[in-house]
């Protein structure tokens, strides 16, 4: 599993003039956006779609759990409809992942701005801490914290925030360090602007592009992380439908009924592909102004 990509990739500083004046993405970007929106819509509409309840066992169907007219994607070992569980699983992921990433982004960005702008002691301390967290194998951290404190949506969000924030911190700090040397920052200082104003109004808007690209990437990796945690059995507690958990439960049957494990794998892969494609599309736009 993991967020090996959490070792920050070098991000280009956005060229000047990145207003949202023309919103054009490349094909890849649109494709990614389409995938994500499709999942989002499906997840949103889950309660009103005519699906069997995700936790309802249809024991009769266990005779032949393969896809059939009643259950388009078949049922799992407990007779629960896979299509339904997949769709409800999307809800879970699309709730937890964005919240976690939002938390990480806010924490990382704020600390990164401060470290990059003030430099000196706060910078050294924060950077050291971030290095430690980053170098620590994330999965180990997950395991230790989650088994101590138990798995719940809140705990997962908290752990992901803590482990993802350093990446955003590094990114924002690097950009702040570069942007603070720009002359318009000096001009603002000469007007007597406060540090808060300079960080939020002068520097941050110009760091928008790479941050947005990174958020997309984080969403993808967080989705993988949540899936992996579920797969290992330390994710959200059952019976919440969770793609990773679904694979875990059905992996043992793979030689007989592979569809049970394959469907959630395809689901999670497609969502992450969507995030990554969107990131590629956005990155191209950021780089080419």
């Amino acid at each position, binding site marked *: 599993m993991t967020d090996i990509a959490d070792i920050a990739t070098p991000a280009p500083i956005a060229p000047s003039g990145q207003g949202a004046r023309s919103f054009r993405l490349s094909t890849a970007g649109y494709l990614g956006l389409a995938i994500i929106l499709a999942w989002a819509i499906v997840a949103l509409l889950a309660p009103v779609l005519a699906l069997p309840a995700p936790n309802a066992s249809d024991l009769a169907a266990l005779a032949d759990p393969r896809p059939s007219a009643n259950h388009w994607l078949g049922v799992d070992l407990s007779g629960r409809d896979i299509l339904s569980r997949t769709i409800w699983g999307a809800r879970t992921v699309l709730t937890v992942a964005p919240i976690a990433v939002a938390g990480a982004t806010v924490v990382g960005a704020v600390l990164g701005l401060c470290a990059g702008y003030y430099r000196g002691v706060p910078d050294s301390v924060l950077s050291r801490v971030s290095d430690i967290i980053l170098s620590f194998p994330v999965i180990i951290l997950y395991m230790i914290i989650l088994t101590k404190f138990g798995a719940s949506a809140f705990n997962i969000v908290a752990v992901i925030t803590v482990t993802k924030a350093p990446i955003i911190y590094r990114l924002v700090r690097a950009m702040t360090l570069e942007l603070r040397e720009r002359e*318009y920052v000096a001009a603002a200082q000469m007007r*007597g602007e406060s540090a808060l104003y300079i960080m939020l109004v002068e520097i941050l808007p*110009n760091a928008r592009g790479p941050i947005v690209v990174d958020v997309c990437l984080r969403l993808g990796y967080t989705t993988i992380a949540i899936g992996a945690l579920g797969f290992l059995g330390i994710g959200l507690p059952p019976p919440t439908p969770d793609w990773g958990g679904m694979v875990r439960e059905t992996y043992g049957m793979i030689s007989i009924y592979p569809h049970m494990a394959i469907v959630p794998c395809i689901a999670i892969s497609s969502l992450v592909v969507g995030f990554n494609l969107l990131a590629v599309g956005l990155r191209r736009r950021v780089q080419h102004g």
Partner: protein
Amino acid sequence: MAEPGPLLACERLTVDYGSEGGRQRAVDDLSFHIGRGEAFGLVGESGCGKSTVALAIMRHLGPNGIVANGAIRFEGTDLLGLGGEALRRVRGARIAMVYQDPLSSLNPVMTIGRQLMEVPLLHRTADRATARRLAVQALADVELPDPEALMSRYPHQLSGGQQQRCVIAMAMIAEPALLVLDEPTTGLDVTVEAAVLDLVDRLRRRRGTAVLFISHNLGAVGRLCDRVGVLYAGRLVEQGALAQVFRNPRHPYTRGLLNCVPSAGANRQGRPLTPIGGSLTEAARLAVGCAFADRCGHVVEGLCTSRPIALASVADEASHVARCVRSESLPTFAWRQASVPQPAARAATETILEARGLSKRYDLDGSSIAALGGIEVELERGRTLAIVGESGSGKSTFARILSGLTGADDGELSFHGQDIARLPIAKRSRDLRQRLQMIFQNPDSTLNPSHTVGYALRRAAGRLCGLRRQEADAEVSRLLKLVQLPTHYAQRMPDQLSGGQRQRISIARALAAAPEVVVADEPVSALDVSVQAAVANLLKDLQERQQLSLVFISHDIALVRYMADYVALFYRGRVVEFGPADAVFAPPYHPYTQMLLAAVPDPDPDSPRPRLALREPSAVQPGGTERGCPFTNRCPYRIEGKCDREKPPIVIPSAGHRIACHLSPENLPHDLVGAFGGAALS
């Protein structure tokens, strides 16, 4: 001369660049030729297509560049038809190129020696031992010290001038027939630039190498070339022998260019710089008639705009052609007068800013560097104090201390009696911030790309003057008018403006609070020549009208001569000369001042060209030597045992004029008296 005909003949070359937005014509129907051993200069500002020409010759236009028409014949063969192996044999061996930014043109992880040796290994099928010998010899030919040791150094260990010499060595090592130089001295200090140009001149005369010298710097071209061609909007507008074109320019654009370059011989009272109005538009590129018509002061509707204009010979001057239907009716071109002697000395005003013993050190990698050591200068109300220096002189550090972006370690900087040497900007009172503002160097980063022009100005007005929304808006309009920009520009974003326009906004922003002192740190260095003139004039004008006291920091000594009342010359953190501009420049006395003035390239073919021995600094070393005179190592007049040991005393030849030199006034060299006006010291 075995081969008949020119070495390089560019015939009707037309190059387009294709992009998502369509095709853009970069070079249109260009024809010129270079004979064997001849130096040809191609001159123009940004966007004229001169770099495209160089890249077309080297067949390196990139995927977007398309040669729509024409041929480039080199020794008889059309380069545009070559491919693969044949092209590789020409590149580096028969035609070699020298580029603009030498540091990034060299591989940072490969030693100088290896990079040089690659050329003979590739082209002369030499073995390693021979290649090495040739490389060392090439380094010696470009007058670099200790070539053997240099072979195993890396590019980042050398100074800019040394790096460029290495690139030149690499180009010359295979003894090419043609050397193409694309803005080779942009970004180098003026003394280094002069030395490099002289080197190229010596080399090409010795080896009989032809040179294609591409530059926007008319003076540099004038120093090196035999013939010159002027490009505008991708078209050749004038061509001929250098002396002819510069003495008797027959195209309005050429005249305009020559008129807006400040000359080291002309001071404030001389004729003002005349910028070229307007700017190069895309429509102009596509114009049927003259591309310069929309900016030309001599344009005649219909005559100039209705049909294509061909190059026509100029009367009585063989091989001098100009693309202008009115060229014969243009008035005689007169170079600006040299200095007009100052009328009665302007009444001295009060001194409002005074630096005494200002010092600052930087700690870099464990060693301490003195960026400034004991600076003493004064600024009077309503006058311009120019600070001149090359890289490492400490002038930017001085600007930063003045503006409060950094603090001095020692000494005093008193502004109306208040010592601000160690007063950071955050601690300055609003009143002080109002009175002392700054204009920055780089038009690309002086404005926040995410804010509109109006926001930037409103914010300045609001913060510095405490104006509220309504008043601030009115203020924005007033400021835009002040810098001669239309008021609707307030809605624009910086990337919709040109460099010159951005710099004007930067000036407007600084003036929002009606300051007393404006610190301008290289305000025009990054702009095109014609735009420089416009912005410089604006500053001068504003200064007169608003009674500003201006601290004008620049490395461009000719521009300084044009702008300044008082001049302070910085070298390695010390002031080597200070005084009224005329006293300092006409004639120049301090050996460094002399060297700077002699190094400034002047396009006027009739101006005397003193050629002093110009020695470059041996390595990059910011900050001065602790003992003795900072200029010792490069000074042609130095006294062994004295100049390198004892700090030079301050000599005062006339009121307000200070020179830091061991030589007494009578003994100061007078080589340049007459070259720059003025009379000898008595």
